[in-house]
C-alpha cells in the first residue's frame, strides 16, 4: 500500500462520515462532492482514466450540483430538526452498518489479484479500449441505458408539473411548519 492509497482512504472515509453526519444539508452535500473528487483520483490510480473523468464531470459536476440546487430550492438546508420519533434508529443503524462492514470485510479479506500486477494490461482505461468494449459486447446495455435515461427525463418532467396550488395542508404539516418557525425564531 502506497502513501497515496493511505491518504486517499483517509480522505474518502472522512468525507463520507461528514456527509452522513453534518446537520447542515449544504455542508453535507459539499462533503459528498469532496468524496466524489477523491474517488475520481482513486480511479485514475486504478487505471480507469476515462471513468475518473466521467466521475468528475457527471457525478460531482452534474448530480451533486442538482442535489445542492434542490436543497436550496426547498429551503431545506436545516436538516434533522424537531423531535425525532425514532431515537433508537441511530445506534441501531450504526450497529447494523458495523455488522455489515465486518461481514463484508471478512468476505473480501482473501481476495487478491489474479495475475501479478505487472502483467495487467488495462490500457489505462482510456476511451478507445473502453469504447470498443462498450460498443461491442456491452452494446445492448448501452442502448438500455439510453432508454432508461430517456424515461427518466420524461418522468422528471412529468413529476414536476405544476400541481394543485394552494392545497390544504395536513395537520402534521401545519404543525411542522409551526415547529420550524419556532426553531427559526
Amino acid at each position, binding site marked *: 500500500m502506497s502513501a497515496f492509497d493511505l491518504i486517499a482512504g483517509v480522505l474518502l472515509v472522512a468525507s463520507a462520515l461528514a456527509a452522513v453526519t453534518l446537520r447542515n444539508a449544504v455542508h453535507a452535500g459539499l462533503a459528498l462532492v469532496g468524496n466524489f473528487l477523491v474517488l475520481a483520483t482513486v480511479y485514475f490510480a486504478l487505471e480507469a482514466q476515462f471513468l475518473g473523468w466521467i466521475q468528475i464531470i457527471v457525478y460531482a459536476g452534474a448530480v451533486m450540483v442538482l442535489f445542492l440546487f434542490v436543497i436550496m430550492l426547498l429551503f431545506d438546508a436545516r436538516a434533522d430538526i424537531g423531535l425525532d420519533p425514532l431515537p433508537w434508529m441511530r445506534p441501531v443503524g450504526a450497529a*447494523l452498518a458495523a455488522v455489515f462492514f465486518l461481514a463484508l470485510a471478512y*468476505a473480501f479479506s482473501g481476495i487478491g489479484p489474479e495475475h501479478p500486477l505487472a502483467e495487467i494490461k488495462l490500457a489505462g482505461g482510456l476511451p478507445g479500449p473502453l469504447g470498443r468494449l462498450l460498443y461491442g459486447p456491452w452494446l445492448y446495455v448501452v442502448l438500455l441505458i439510453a432508454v432508461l435515461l430517456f424515461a427518466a427525463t420524461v418522468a422528471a418532467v412529468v413529476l414536476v408539473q405544476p400541481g394543485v396550488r394552494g392545497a390544504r395542508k395536513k395537520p402534521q404539516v401545519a404543525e411542522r411548519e409551526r415547529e420550524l418557525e419556532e426553531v427559526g425564531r
Partner: protein
Amino acid sequence: MLLLLIILLPLLGFVFLGLFGKQLREPAPGVIASALAGLSFLLVLSGVLTGGGEWAIEDWLPGIPFGLVLDPLSGYMGLVVTGIGFLIHVYAIGYMHGDEGFSRFFAYLNFFIAMMMTLVLAGSYPVMFIGWEGVGLASFLLIGFWYTEKVNADSARKAFITNRIGDLGFLLGMALLYSLFGTLSIGELREAIETSTVLPLALGTAGLLLFVGAVGKSAQVPLMVWLPDAMAGPTPVSALIHAATMVTAGVYLIARSSFLYANLQDVSYVIAVIGILTAAYGALSALGQWDIKKIVAYSTISQLGYMFLAVGVGAYWIALFHVMTHAFYKALLFMASGSVIHALGGEQDVRKMGGLKKYLPRTHLHGLVGALSLAGFPLLAGFWSKDAIITATLAYPFGGTGFYLAGLAVALLTAVYAMRWYVLVFLGEYKGSGQPHEAPPVMTVPNDVLAVGAVFAGFLALPEPLWNLIEPYLAPALAHVEVHHMSLALEWGLIALSAVVALAGLYLGYLAFTRWALPKWYLTFQTWSANAFYVDRVYNALIVNPLKELALVLALFDGFLDTAYIALAGVSGWLGNRLARLQTGYVRTYGALMVLGLVAVLVWGVLR
C-alpha cells in the same frame, strides 16, 4: 305409488299446517288434518280390498332397498291406525278448541300418522326404524305440547329417552340380523329363516335385541315408566298414541318378525314372562291411581302386557286381534275421560268427580261401554280378545298353565279397577266444584263410533266352531305355529270361566268402591299402588341421579377445555397485536428492517 301416498298425504298435512297453519282460522287446520287422515284410511282400505301391493326404491342404502309393502298384516294394522286416527282427529277439533297451538297440534298429529304408517307399511327393518323413530319424535312433540309447563317438557323428555334405550336394542338387533343374513328386507329374511335347516346361534340374541326395542316402545317392564308421565299431553294424544297405535308398535314388530320368534323358544318365553309381569304391574298400579287418565294409562300398560303374553306364547294373530279391540275401547276410555276433563274445565282428580252420570249422559254411556269392554264383560269386544289370549296360553306351543292362571288373575284385577274407574267418575254424588256440561257433537260422535266398535269388534274372531275372520286373513303374513287345539267342551268351559271371572270382578269392584269400608291393609296397598310401587324413585336413585352427577363432572371438564381453547385463540390475537406494531408507517423503520434482512443474509452467506 298408492302406498307412498298413504304416507305422503299426512306428511303433506304436517308440512302445510306447520308452515301456514298459524294463518288459518279454527277449525280449518283440524278439518284439513282430519280429511288427510281420512283419505289415508280410504287409501289403505282400497289397498286392502285390491289385494295389497308393494313399492320400493332400489339401493336406497347400499344393498338395502326402501320398500313399502301392503300385505294382510300391514293392511290390518294400517286400517286400525288410520281409522282410529281419523276419529281422534275429529274429536280433537272439539277438544283443542281455543288452544293457541291448534294448528301446531294437528300438524304434529298428521306427522304422527305419516310416521306410524311408515312403520306399518315398512318392507324392511331400516324403513320400519325410520317410522319407529318418527313416532317417538311425534310422541315427544305431542306429550310436551304445552311445553311452557316444566312438567310437560320433562315428561316428553322422559318418554323420548326411555324409548331411546329400547331403540338401541332395535339397532343392535338390526345390525346382528344384517351381519347374519346380509339383508334387512323382511321378505328376504323370512325366506332365509324359513327355508334354512340350521339356524345361526346368534339369532336368539338378535330376537332378544329386537324385543328390547319393543320393550321401550310398548312400555313393558322395565321401560314402562314413561307411559304414565305421558299423560301430561292432551287427551287426544293419549288416546291415539299411547293407547291405540304407537305403543302397539312393539307388538307389531314382533308379529312382523314372527318368522323369527316362532323358532326361538327361549326368547319367546322371556317375552311371555315380561308380558305377564307387565300386565300384573299395570293392573296393580291402576287400582290405586287418583288421576282419571293415569288409571287408564296403567290399564294400557297392563293390556299391552297381555299382548306381549300372546306373542310370547306364539299366538301372533290373537295379539293383533287384541290390538284392534284394545284400540277401540282404550281410545274410547281416554276420549270419555277427555270429555269429562273438558266438561269439568280441566279437573283430573277422580276424588273431585262423581255423579257425572246425570250431567254427561252421552259420555257416561261411552265410559260405561269402554269400562265393560276393558273388563271383559261377556260378549263385548274386550271379552273375546282377552279370553282368546288367556286360552291361548294353554293351546299354543310356548305357553303353560302358569301363564294361564296368572292371566286369569290379572283379568280379575282388570275388571275390579275398570269398575272402580266407572264408579268413581260417574256414580255417587258430585264432589267437585265446577259446572259440568256435555261435550259438543264433534267430540261425542267419534266416541259413538268407537263405542260401536268396542261392542261389536270382537265378533270378527270367535272361537270354534263359530266364524273366525281374522286368523285366516292374517295367516299368510305370520309364521305358522302348531296349535294344540283343545276339545270344544274344554274351550267353551274355559270361556265360561273367564266370563264368570270378569263378572265377579265387576261385582267385587262395584261393592268395594261403593258400599264397603276398605280395610287397613288395602289402604296401605293403595298408597303403594298410587305411587306405582315407587319404581320411579328407584330408577332415579340408581340410574338417573348418578348419570346427572356424571354429566356435571363432564361439564366441568368441558369448561376447562373451553378456557384452554379461548386462551389458545387469545395467543394468536396477542401475537397479531405485537406484529401489528411493526407497521409503524415510518419509512425508516421499513428501511431498517430491510437492512436487517440484508445483514442477516450476508452474515449467513459469509459464515457458510
